[in-house]
């Protein structure tokens, strides 16, 4: 359940953020290239680095974010210590890490949208939003399906960030699937149970991918 909630937040968050940024950054120029590289850099850096970085930024006592919140007169939340909040915090950090990936893929997809189509729609009096809805989005759908599959699978495999930031806690609120397997094998020494979980995990991944491929083909055919 934790994994499903986590994946839903991560996939929705990183995809919409990636798409939004791609639409804003789909232009020439050094500034756009700079912003794109800045966002993508997080995808290149290791999960361990990202997890440690955000542990420190989010540190309840001396962290930069807590200090900022306190400065503005509010009481900072215990982002990683509160079992209600921790899973969303880890999800946000994951979004921060992988949004650059969907940004780059969406940018590549946008480059394949013919400029003439956009111009023709603009001449017909379509506003920016309608142009996106009726011209860009239909052409971008295969790209979106690809990004969705990849980030879904990625979010299901999440482990490092949980291991470093929360160790599955507080009160197991961030114990995602792979972390549970790891715990069973190395802490509870229940290899049989872990193996069974791995099989379930694999079947689940396989099903997800098959479903995505099917959805993709359906859309292509339509």
């Amino acid at each position, binding site marked *: 359940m934790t994994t499903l909630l986590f994946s839903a937040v991560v996939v929705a968050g990183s995809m919409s953020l990636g798409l939004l*940024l791609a639409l*804003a*950054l789909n232009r020439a120029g050094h*500034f*756009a290239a*700079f*912003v*794109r*590289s*800045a*966002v*993508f*850099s*997080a995808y*290149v*850096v*290791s*999960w*361990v*680095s990202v*997890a*440690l*970085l*955000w*542990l*420190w*930024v989010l*540190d309840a*006592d*001396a962290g*930069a974010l807590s*200090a900022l919140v306190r*400065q503005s007169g509010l009481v900072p939340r215990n982002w990683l210590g509160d079992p209600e909040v921790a899973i969303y915090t880890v999800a946000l950090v994951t979004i*921060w890490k992988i949004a*650059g*990936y969907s940004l*780059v*893929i969406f*940018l*590549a997809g946008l480059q394949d949208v013919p400029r003439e189509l956009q111009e023709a729609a603009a001449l017909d009096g379509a506003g920016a939003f309608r142009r996106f809805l009726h011209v860009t989005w239909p052409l971008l759908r295969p790209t979106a399906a*690809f990004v969705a599959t990849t980030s879904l*699978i990625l979010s299901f*495999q999440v*482990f*490092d960030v949980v*291991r*470093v930031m929360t160790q599955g806690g507080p009160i197991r609120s961030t114990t995602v699937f*792979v972390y549970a*397997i*790891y715990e069973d*094998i190395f802490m509870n020494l229940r*290899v049989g149970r*872990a*193996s069974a979980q*791995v099989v379930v*995990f*694999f079947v689940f*991944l*396989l099903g997800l*991918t098959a479903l995505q491929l099917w959805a993709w083909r359906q859309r292509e055919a339509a």
Partner: protein
Amino acid sequence: MTPRTVIGWKGAVGEIALHFGLGLVALVWLLPYAWMVATSFKTLPEILQAPSYPLPSGLDFEAYAAVLGAMPLGRYFWNTAVMALAIALLQMAVALPAGYALAKLRFVGRPLAFGLVIATLLIPAQVRFVPVFALLAEVRLVNTMAALVLPFGVSALGTFLVRQALLSVPDSIVEAARLDGAGELRIIYGLLGPMIAPTLVALFLFSFVFHWNDYFWPLVMTTNDTVRTLPLGIALLREQGTGVRWHIVMAGNVLLSLPVLAVFAATQRYLLRAVASGA
């Protein structure tokens, strides 16, 4: 004032707002790095200071010295570099003939073989590690470099990328080389390898960065210092009761992430193009 200029004025405001927003976005991604570097040069009293000042009072290398004292840093660096390099080279060496067979040779069951390669693309390390760990324990290879390198020597992604690249090489080139008397190995490594160099370099870079960063596999396959890698050591810094000594953890983090960021900065055009093309 004509409507046209009004639109232009509106557009200019939009441009400024967009640039402002994008600037903010860049800050959200770059400030944590800056905070990391700034923290790494601080002293313990500066960290503990209640309203903490963002910049360190001076360049203090105490934290870096502490990292060196806490772990065999040189050994970890060496282990990580050797592991990542060995995996990347091995993947290139194996993916080339495998991709060649799938792209250029005709044999019974080729579609099936290709299907199997694609299917293994979907199996992540988190699924494989239980049986592989049991297997390696059986042959007493846990806690060796072999346990870190060998399971990744064959890359489904690499095989797939090489196959795709070789499909665009005309068959006549291979046939001409055969007529000239070149052996298969010579054709693969001497002729086709250089022709698809961009794909191979992309594969190498990806593989190297991925395994340099990898935390999961070394974590489950090693328990002692002789083969432990850098991400493990740096993550341990925090667990070893460092408490509030964040300057030391961040110094370690700088050492871990800087090489990767440098590689990214040097090869980003290349990497971005490779990612965009579906690697």
